[in-house]
């Protein structure tokens, strides 16, 4: 099972990057990279790092890529999808909805018939990570917070329009 999941996710990862190399549309490129990040989160889950997997999806796929898509929309160098090509998206959305309902049923099955105990003590749990982050890695943690403030203030000052414009 683990081997099957690994090879499935690995093939999708490599396929997403290769598709990005061949694609000309920047918005499609960003969507391919979101696919890559989600598959990488699955691989992190295989490697006993569930917290990193969640962080990967929330910060990378949710935060950074939305920032990329906003900038791509603001730059707007190419025309959008012509309407006649949007037919296949209906089938795709049905497929994704079906996969999602099956997945939710699986999750509910685990909730209704609790088979295993909670994995709070497993390696890679948020408890252990947080303890390590605030003891051994306290100085890098604080320096990173300063870095984020500098980066965000710098970004806002960079893109601010001048008053004379």
């Amino acid at each position, binding site marked *: 099972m*683990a*081997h099957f999941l*690994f090879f499935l996710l*690995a093939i999708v*990862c*490599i396929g997403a*990057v*290769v598709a*990005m*190399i061949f694609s000309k549309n*920047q918005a499609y*490129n*960003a969507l391919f*990279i979101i696919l*890559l*990040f989600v598959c*990488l989160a699955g*691989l*992190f889950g*295989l*490697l*006993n*790092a569930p*917290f*990193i997997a969640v*962080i*990967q999806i929330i*910060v*990378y796929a949710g*935060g*950074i890529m939305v*920032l*990329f898509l906003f*900038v*791509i929309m*603001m*730059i707007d*160098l190419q025309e959008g999808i012509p309407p006649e090509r949007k037919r296949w998206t209906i089938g795709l959305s049905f497929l994704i909805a079906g996969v999602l309902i099956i997945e939710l049923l699986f999750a509910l099955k685990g909730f209704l018939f609790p088979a295993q105990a909670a994995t709070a003590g497993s*390696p*890679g749990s948020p408890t*252990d*990570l947080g303890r*390590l*982050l605030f003891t*051994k*890695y306290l100085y*890098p943690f604080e320096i*990173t917070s300063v*870095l*984020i403030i*500098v*980066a*965000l203030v*710098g*970004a*806002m000052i*960079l*893109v601010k329009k001048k008053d004379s414009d």
Partner: protein
Amino acid sequence: MVPTSYFIILSAILFVLGAFAFFVKRDLITQFLCIEVMLSAANLAFIAFAKSASSLDGQIIVIFIITVAAAEAAVGLAIILLVYRQKKTIKSEDMNLMKG
């Protein structure tokens, strides 16, 4: 259990593909995406080694890498937006102000 070497090989392949795409692509946004791909490949290697060494330090480093990537994306996209406002293009071969 999947051996660690598989993950390392996948990480190397992703890193090389990202570097290749960085040199092949011609617009700044896609090149920036390629940098993110390379960072993620490094993350995968860190987590694979953290598991094989059964230590949490690799996962902590990945948290720092993701944070730095977020800061880098904010500043880099701001710079790309500025370049687009000034030159009305984001093709990287048009960035020849310094005659490089």
